[in-house]
């Protein structure tokens, strides 16, 4: 890391000059394999699960073929840990360093991130240890099956939701409060829910977070690099995935409208939905060549309203069907309702999904969807 010390000091100085503030950042030089591991698991010391294994394999394959290179990773922790890849070129790592300070500033100042759990790195380690203990005590298979079920329902978390009435409509919170679980099972569900909320926050701020980091990166590098290096960097910046370029364009628009101070203000209060809703314009949609594509009639809708709606819906519901818990008449009742009646759920997944819910709820589970009432109980799935 020694060769980067001078450039880190310079980046910090420039960043402070721009008005950025951050918690300490610890850089760590790491191999591609370690980066693939953290990227697939989300956190370095998280419990081991087959589900990350698929993603890990995919990332490793792509790394081998140099198709996708995750250049950096940074964790929302205090201090923030940032992973630089040893095989990166010096210039690539300088890019990463500048980008990381954008994230660190976002973590420390964004309204939603300030409230987040900065200790999740250690908590995840604690969860992993506890799960291993439970594996020894209750059997590996039992614990793994339970983890599968918990992870399946964990997609219903919402890190932003504070209203208890609305929270209990979300399955994972409902199960945590009401399912007839053993203490160790409840503890595991709670742990998975906590980790789920940590990642949910990252998902709900992905465009603003990456956009801000890219925006900061570009602003710092323009100061830091020679014209020739800057030209090289521009190619890198343009080749980033859409969330990066979209977020970058949105913060650029804010700066044009209300100066750098305005952008700083936006990074403090915005999450993705608000950023998109207030900043995305027809001009940006055209420039980024974004549209809503309907494969059924191969039509493209390039209207800003349509693009906005699609993006916001993905952000609000993670692209997943909206299934809510209905108020129960009886303590043993669990009725789930798919609220968008017009849209069909994939019937092949319903049995497996309800089986996972049943694993936690123990009593019959009902789902109203696709114009039917699905019931899963000890005998399996039945439809009425």
């Amino acid at each position, binding site marked *: 890391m020694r060769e980067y010390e001078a450039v880190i000091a310079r980046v910090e100085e420039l960043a402070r000059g721009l008005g950025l503030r951050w918690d300490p950042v610890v850089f760590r030089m790491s191999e591609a394999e370690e980066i*693939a*591991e953290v990227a*697939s*698991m*989300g956190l370095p010391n*998280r419990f*081991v*699960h*087959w*589900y*990350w*294994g*698929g*993603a*890990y*394999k*995919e990332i*490793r394959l792509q790394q081998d073929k140099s198709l996708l290179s995750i250049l950096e990773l940074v964790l929302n922790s205090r201090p923030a840990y940032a992973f630089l890849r040893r095989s990166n070129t010096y210039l690539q790592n300088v890019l990463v360093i500048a980008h990381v300070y954008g994230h660190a500033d976002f973590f420390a100042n964004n309204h939603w991130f300030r409230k987040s759990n900065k200790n999740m790195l250690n908590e995840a380690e604690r969860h992993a240890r506890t799960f291993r203990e439970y594996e020894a005590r209750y059997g590996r298979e039992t614990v793994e099956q339970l983890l*599968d079920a918990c992870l*399946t329902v964990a*997609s219903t978390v919402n890190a932003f939701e504070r209203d208890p009435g609305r929270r209990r409509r979300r399955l994972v919170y409902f199960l945590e409060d009401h399912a007839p679980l053993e203490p160790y099972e409840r503890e595991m569900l709670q742990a998975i829910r906590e980790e*789920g909320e940590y*990642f*949910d926050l*990252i*998902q709900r701020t*992905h*465009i603003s977070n990456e956009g801000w980091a890219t925006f900061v990166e570009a602003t710092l590098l323009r100061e830091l690099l020679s014209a020739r290096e800057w030209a090289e960097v521009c190619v890198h910046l343009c080749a980033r*995935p*859409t*969330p990066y370029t979209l977020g970058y364009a949105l913060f650029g628009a804010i700066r044009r409208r209300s100066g750098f101070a305005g952008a700083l203000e936006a990074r403090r209060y915005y999450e993705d939905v608000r950023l998109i809703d207030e900043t995305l314009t027809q001009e940006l949609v055209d420039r*980024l*060549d*974004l*549209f*809503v*594509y*309907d494969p*059924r009639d*191969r*039509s*493209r*809708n390039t209207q800003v309203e349509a*693009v906005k709606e*699609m*993006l916001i819906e*993905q*952000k609000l519901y993670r*692209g*997943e*069907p909206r299934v809510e818990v209905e108020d129960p008449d009886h303590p043993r009742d669990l009725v789930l309702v798919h609220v968008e009646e017009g*849209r*069909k*759920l*994939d019937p092949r*997944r*319903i049995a*497996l*999904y309800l089986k*996972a819910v049943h694993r936690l709820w123990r009593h019959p589970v009902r789902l109203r969807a696709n114009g039917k009432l699905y019931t899963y109980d000890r005998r399996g799935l039945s439809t009425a």
Partner: protein
Amino acid sequence: MRIHRGRIAQHKHDELLRAYLKQNLHELIQQKELVVNGKVKTQLSTLDLPTLRYGDEEAYLAQGAGGAGRGGGGGDEGVQPVGGVLGGDHHGPEVRVELDFDEFVRLAQEVLLDELELPALQRLPRGGEVDTEEFPELDDLDRMGLAADLNLEETLVTSLLRNVRERGVLDFDVDLRQDGWYFVEDPSASRNHRSLEVYVLDISGSMRGDYLALVRKTIFLLWYALERRYPTNLRRYVVFQDVAEEKTREEFFCVESSGGTHISAGFEKAVEMLEGVSEYDTYLFLFTDGETSSGDFELAKRKYEETLDRFDLVCYGHVNPGSRGVGGFSEYVQEVARKRPNATFANLVDLDSVREALRQFLARVDGGSKARCGSTRRSSRGWRS
């Protein structure tokens, strides 16, 4: 020491994958289009977490690809779905539920070995070559071709000593004129480490379902056995109906069955594959239901004889999942195979008969190698009857 959690997670993932494959191999392997873009499609809903998803095709957010223009023009061209909007831990829909073909083959081989109770075989080091990291790779100097009797190990040691002596450097700088150290024995007695395998498949109308499954399982097991014998192999693929065509590996596993059966065309094309290939052990594997079109019988006989003269071993698989009697051209081949040392005939009825066919084949390979080559060091108990 770092715990490689990623690798452990992958191991767990692969264990589940294996279990899934084991359950579904027979159905998966029958897919007409087995490989698409190097991937085998599976219905791997169990390898994803079973969260709910929409069933219908839905509109999605997209971006124009590579300035391909936009606006009113229809078609999927220039439409790039915008992924990763959610980032972070959300890899649900992005996790591929497809398997790399090579990985599929590897897993299928494991499953088949298990099912047939065949022991795993060791990979052979390349004979005559020095297999250690401390020595430089000298792939061009193996025991083939012009310097087939070159003893690499001795040559390298001689070269090393010479370089120390003459130049004072610990370096391999092989000069064959000075360092060449040769085996005394006849190079033709050394093991051949190269094979040419020609796979010929009948894709006339009856080729589907169990038929395809049997052929593919046999081929996967043949690959397994042959890869462990021949570190260098060339594989050529031919399909035939009325006419024969050479195909790529991927195309070979995506056949559309149609037309009549001209087995003679298959043999003829197979012989063409020998063009320019010398110093290889040559194998022909032909799979058919033996029902050659009327009028082709005599020609097919002649072409079969020709392949027997040209290939080291000709394996004829009579694919017969219905377990009917052997008739037609297959009957003729069965007769010939009893007399000719380099012909085998297999009546592929079920997996047990595949095992039998493999044993027969390997016995011939070993026998053939002994005739042509030196000793065999490979342990293939269980693969032999």
